[in-house]
């Protein structure tokens, strides 16, 4: 019997797990995918929002500003890429100034620090590639960018180090009341627990509705993105938003990523399929058209990949983080759409607080709050790197030529807590395969390393778990 089972190893589930691991409590995370960070958390803008968007007084506003403020220290403790670069909301029409002012006022009410409304000349001083039509912009220096995988993986790893169990490829199919607590029926057997945290992203409504009469509905809202080569990474040095559009959130943004690429997107298309992460021709076209509105001369020819992510949109556009009245011990963490990534550290804290009070949890005296990420040899001096290779020769063997990732980093990614088991798992941890050739060179080599280190055949190596096998047989085996 667990004290707490968390459904979902996305950024919310991982944050909750990590915060709970501060206490003496038996926690298990159940994840239907083969790895952490496989749903909404892996495909988003990677933005740490300042917090002027959400309605004043809302939980979303509160956790956004709180999460933003926590991010710097967390990034130090858990060693993931985060840069507080600031953001601009670009206003292109004189008649839209009131909307910009409105954002500023909301920001003030929400407690966003140091905002400024900049006039066009000041905007160009900060960002020379902003549109010639810019009238003014809202500058929020507290905004930043984060590696979404880095954040999610770091929190999960740290939770695991502090005793939280993770079960992958484990899909919850039904939830039964037992006394006290719940029984979760999964494809890998049953689990019993006193409490459940429902951090299931686009599936949060499914689990909520299994135990509650007050139904909720989560709409998967698809966002298409284009990722540009690092050669385009300095086109802007801050996140550039469009003034929010009344109908669909924040519009298309242009932002540097923590790894030096340029990201453009997302669209916002409501769909039915919670696995519908396909990009569409219309979506990609819309990105190309809309991104150019705020940032000029975007080198869209340098796109190296496009992808789509799903936001877990709840119709009231508010985070639902609470114990259900009609299902004691069942804690929702639902409707976690943007700014969910930003808010995640605060979301985790809030969930832990609910459970700490409910279960009267005591502090875990052995809690280890720091974690070291995978080494980035490129950050070392030539001498330091030389010493590293002399000690561990695998760091001298480059596997991914685009991102210059060595076997050493890949071995670390495989063998650390909650290590990588697939090509995408390696990619999200090390960036091997994430560069301009999109794994053309390194995938056969990474497959060999995975096969050797995990002692599985090449036929079992997948792109991202399940049936996503890379090779299907031997030459001439069907002849």
């Amino acid at each position, binding site marked *: 019997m667990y004290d707490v089972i968390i459904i979902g190893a996305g950024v919310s589930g991982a944050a909750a797990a990590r915060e709970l691991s501060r206490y003496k409590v038996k926690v298990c995370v159940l994840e239907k995918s083969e790895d952490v960070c496989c749903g909404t958390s892996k495909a988003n803008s990677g933005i740490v929002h300042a917090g002027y968007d959400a309605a004043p007084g809302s939980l979303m506003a509160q956790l956004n500003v709180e999460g933003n403020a926590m991010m710097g220290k967390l990034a130090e403790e858990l060693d993931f890429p985060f840069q507080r670069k600031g953001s601009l909301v670009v206003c292109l029409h004189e008649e839209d100034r009131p909307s910009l002012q409105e954002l500023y006022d909301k920001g003030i009410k929400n407690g966003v620090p140091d905002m400024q409304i900049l006039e066009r000349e000041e905007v160009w001083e900060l960002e020379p590639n902003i549109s010639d039509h810019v009238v003014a912009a809202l500058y929020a220096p507290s905004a930043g960018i984060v590696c979404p995988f880095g954040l999610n993986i770091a929190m999960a790893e740290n939770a695991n180090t502090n005793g939280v169990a993770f079960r992958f490829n484990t899909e919850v199919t039904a939830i039964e009341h037992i006394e006290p607590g719940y029984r979760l029926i999964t494809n890998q057997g049953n689990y019993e627990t006193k409490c459940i945290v429902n951090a299931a992203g686009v599936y949060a409504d499914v689990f909520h509705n299994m135990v509650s009469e007050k139904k909720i509905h989560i709409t998967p809202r698809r966002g298409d993105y284009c990722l540009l080569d690092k050669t385009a990474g300095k086109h802007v040095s801050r996140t550039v938003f469009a003034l929010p559009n009344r109908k669909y959130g924040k519009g298309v943004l242009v932002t540097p990523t923590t790894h030096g690429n340029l990201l453009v997107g997302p669209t916002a298309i409501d769909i039915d399929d919670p696995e519908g992460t396909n990009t569409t021709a219309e979506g990609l076209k819309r990105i190309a058209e809309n991104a150019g509105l705020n940032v000029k001369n975007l080198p869209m020819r340098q796109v190296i990949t496009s992808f789509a992510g799903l936001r877990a949109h709840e119709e009231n556009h508010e985070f639902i983080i609470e114990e259900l009245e009609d299902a004691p011990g069942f804690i929702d963490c639902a409707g976690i759409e943007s700014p969910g990534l930003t808010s995640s550290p605060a979301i985790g804290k809030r969930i832990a607080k609910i459970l700490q009070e409910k279960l009267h949890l005591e502090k875990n005296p052995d809690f280890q709050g720091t974690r070291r990420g995978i080494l980035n040899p490129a950050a070392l001096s030539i001498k330091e790197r*030389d010493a590293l290779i002399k000690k561990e020769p695998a760091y001298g063997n480059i596997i991914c030529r685009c991102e210059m990732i060595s076997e050493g980093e890949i071995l670390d990614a495989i063998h650390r807590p909650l290590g990588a088991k697939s090509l995408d798992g390696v990619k999200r941890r090390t960036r091997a395969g994430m560069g301009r050739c999109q794994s*053309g060179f390194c995938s056969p080599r990474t497959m060999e390393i995975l096969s050797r280190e995990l002692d599985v055949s090449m036929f079992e190596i997948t792109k991202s778990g399940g049936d996503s096998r890379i090779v299907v047989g*031997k030459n001439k085996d069907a002849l």
Partner: protein
Amino acid sequence: MKAYDIVIIGGGPAGLAAAVSARKNGIDRVLILERDKELGGILNQCIHNGFGLHTFKEELTGPEYAARYIAQAAELNLEYKINTMVMDISHEKIVTYMNREEGMQEIQAKAVILAMGCRERSRGALNIPGYRPAGIFSAGTAQRLVNMEGYLPGREVVILGSGDIGLIMARRMTLEGAKVKVVSELMPYSGGLKRNIVQCLDDYGIPLKLSHTVIDIRGKERLEGITLAEVDSHGKPIPGTEEDYTCDTLLLSVGLIPENELSNGMGIDMNRVTSGPNVNESLETSIPGVFACGNVLHVHDLVDFVSEEAAAAGKNAAEYVMREKSAVQISKDIKSPIELEAVEGVRYTVPKTVNVDRMTDRLTVRFRVGAVYQNCFVSAYFDNERVIHKKRPVVAPGEMEDIKLDKSKLLEYPDLKKITIKIEEA
């Protein structure tokens, strides 16, 4: 810091030929740095034949062709390092490399020859909509899996792009037991060699659909199918022409891009059309003493021409080193070089400038055309005078063209500023 006369970046066909040539032209301290586990580069996975018809007057496989040069390199005792990644080349030609045994090393070169080759364009660069399942490979990645490791990437295959690797892989996948359903090409003409279309598609009954592209990719884990559509003259899909194909594999052969990260890092002047460095008649880049050859300079169709070009680069680098050593003061008043300009159907030229004093008696200028032209002329204008007018029954983007410039002829035009190369229709 250890010093070499010539450091060659890359041990594929270009690097090998350049090294052999540099040694034969009198340079002792030559070093090849190769990132893979053996010399030979991409030839090692090109197990089909057709290599060497020009160089050796016989038909060799890729590994056989490479072996000829590797044998020459061995005979000449050329020094090389494998599993070695060049991390940086400074403007002063300090080469920083890394490998397991030596860690990080810096060496000083008098001359550098860039021979890093090229890589394949990926799906991402095409922005094909749809899902991102397993089963989508660039043709070269599939070629490596099949030819070097013995693994079959899939059983029902669609190929997008009719570049040579795609055509070769259509045949290879068929021979290994997969069903290749169709090769689709966005353009109204193939990007590959005519002989490959005949020998790899026609001979196996594999249909080639010109002016067709992939507009959707299905399958959440492994690829399940794609949709093909015909495109109009602007490359836009024509509604109503969609055709669904069931397949577990999509191979992409949609272009090659010279790998110039190191060149860019050095601040070498690059050509927007070729994505390779701009070079002069000596295949020397904008940094004196830094030369480029092979696919890193511009993507070739035939390795024979890579070898030829690389041999020239090796010889020129050798002469550069000799000049530097003998400390011959080059007169400062060298007149500015003749510019080569590609217009009207010609997309680029290699080289881009010619210094008559430095050129060989007969200089090969290579270029590609932007469309298929039939019964046309390849013309070169010396300033305004048409000097070369060569009839060609057909020229196509998939086949590299060349013209020869004779030094004796150029010397007849002492005030020549520009040579314009163009396609003229009959």
